């Protein structure tokens, strides 16, 4: 028996529930193409593109803490106009959906970016949750009214599937997600990184040049599970689970909590190939066989008490 691993996500047909998370692989269209050739990858989310080009922060921008990664890249990207041309070239060369992550600071920027990028993307993910950028990301994403206006403005200019990536750095994630759903998003990606910092005890200084950064990887997985679970209880839209997925168990946990698909980011560190996607997919497949399920869809949200 071969369980059905195909997923339908807010109108996107995915050959696998595994998606490459935003922020990893940078702006390299070559890297996106290379990872898209892995059969276990169902879709790719691009690095977040902003209205203006950004160099990002000075190094150190990332550090391995063992239990996770701390980074403050500072959303480096060539800006939406420049990147549009590269995405246009890329889109003809890849066979899986290309989800373009955008990080607008207000509804006007959102409108301009979506209009320009609509023809070169299969879907959009709004990044209103990066914890370490001024006037972007979490600074707008923690205010339900700003989330509502940016989402509405984005929605107005695209009929493509629209995701919003939410932050765990708020008191009530459900409130933010609900505002986005009311303003027209089709699905929620949960979660972005957690605002945090590290100090080197020998240097006696913060490691990151930006002092604060976002924690990803293994350490944040239980938080992702909790938030996916909460969102599934409260909302009707599909949820994409993201946060510390390193193996099939991590993925299954998020699916049982309510995720319809899974994003993998930090776990690609140190890896020369992208075999981690094959390993996770095989593990999920074997799990479904062992438990007697014919499709991954059968276990979404199963951990919830009826």
């Amino acid at each position, binding site marked *: 028996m071969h369980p059905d691993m195909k997923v339908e996500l807010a109108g996107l047909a995915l050959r696998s529930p595994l998606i490459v998370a935003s922020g990893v692989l940078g702006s390299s269209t070559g890297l996106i193409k290379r990872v898209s050739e892995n059969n276990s990858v169902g879709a790719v989310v691009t690095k977040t593109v902003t209205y203006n080009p950004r160099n990002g922060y000075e190094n150190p921008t990332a550090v391995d803490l063992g239990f996770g990664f701390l980074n403050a890249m500072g959303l480096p990207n060539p800006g939406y106009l420049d990147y549009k041309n590269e995405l246009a070239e890329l889109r003809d060369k890849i066979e899986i959906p290309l989800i373009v992550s955008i990080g607008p600071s207000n509804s006007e920027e959102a409108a301009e970016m979506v209009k320009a990028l609509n023809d070169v993307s299969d879907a959009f993910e709004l990044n209103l949750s990066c914890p370490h950028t001024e006037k972007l990301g979490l600074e707008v994403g923690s205010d339900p009214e700003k989330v509502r206006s940016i989402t509405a403005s984005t929605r107005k200019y695209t009929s493509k599937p629209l995701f919003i990536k939410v932050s765990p750095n708020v008191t009530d994630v459900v409130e933010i997600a609900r505002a986005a759903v009311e303003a027209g998003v089709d699905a929620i990606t949960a979660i972005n990184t957690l605002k945090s910092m590290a100090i080197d005890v020998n240097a006696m200084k913060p490691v990151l040049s930006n002092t604060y950064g976002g924690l990803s990887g293994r350490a944040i997985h239980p938080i992702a599970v909790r938030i996916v679970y909460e969102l599934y209880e409260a909302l009707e839209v599909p949820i994409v689970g993201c946060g510390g997925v*390193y193996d099939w168990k991590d993925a299954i946990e998020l699916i049982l909590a309510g995720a319809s698909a899974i994003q993998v980011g930090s776990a690609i560190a140190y890896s020369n190939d992208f075999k981690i996607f094959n390993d996770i997919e095989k593990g999920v497949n074997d799990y479904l066989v062992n438990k007697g399920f014919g499709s991954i869809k059968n276990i979404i949200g199963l951990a919830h008490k009826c």
Partner: protein
Amino acid sequence: MFGKLHYYVEAEVVRNISETSRVNTLVLKLGQCMDIKPGQFLMVWRPSDGEIPITPSLTQEDTVCLTIEKVGFTSSRLAGLKAGEKIFLRGPYGNGFNLEYPGKYLLVGGGTGAASLTPAYLKLVEKGVQTLFLVGGRNSDNLVYVNKLRELKANIRIATDDGSLGFHGTLPEFFKEIIAESFFENVLTIGPEKMMVKIAEECHRNGIRCQVSLVRIVKCGIGFCGSCALDPVGLRVCVDGPVFNAEEILGTDFGAYMRNEAGRRVEVTL
């Protein structure tokens, strides 16, 4: 596999050796030993001065040498450090050179590349492999590590663009003459990218296995941020490199384009 390299290793500057007006070598004593393969790189951090990738020029248990050209703010600050000052290292990262291929090795170092190739040279000597070391620079005052290599009894030949010492001409021009004289099965090269691509093309024409060490803007150093990617093949210098078999990357952005701080594709100038 994950979480093996948590914290920075503290390193104290024991000596700062001036190589040329633009290049200095820091001799460092490490707080703990690092096992660094020839061609691997370290991320070198000094708080408030920044962090850059450097391929060491000598690695010996708790002693590491970094030969640094003053090209930007961070490299200029690091190159000016005095004995007793502290810096912080993470790594080693990347693959390093493959020195298992049979045959003779021709090492081609432009600028500080000669210094960064020295650990590979020492390893080859240890293995009893025959080597020849080509060192190049704009003029005799710009040559890096020549005295050190002589001290290490390396078989070296020199090229200068202005002919002030050794062969009069560029390293790729000299390289052509050398391989016409005697055959080498292997070439290792570190230096300006425009130079390396010419060496790599010449190797391709002559059936020589060539390994090149690339420099890109390295941010995370561990393969997730994508800033050092080589397009259109999508290879990351920090984990898939920094050493590549030239055959693998000829015809890509190697020698032509890189990505700047913002991830925008720009021309390689050096």
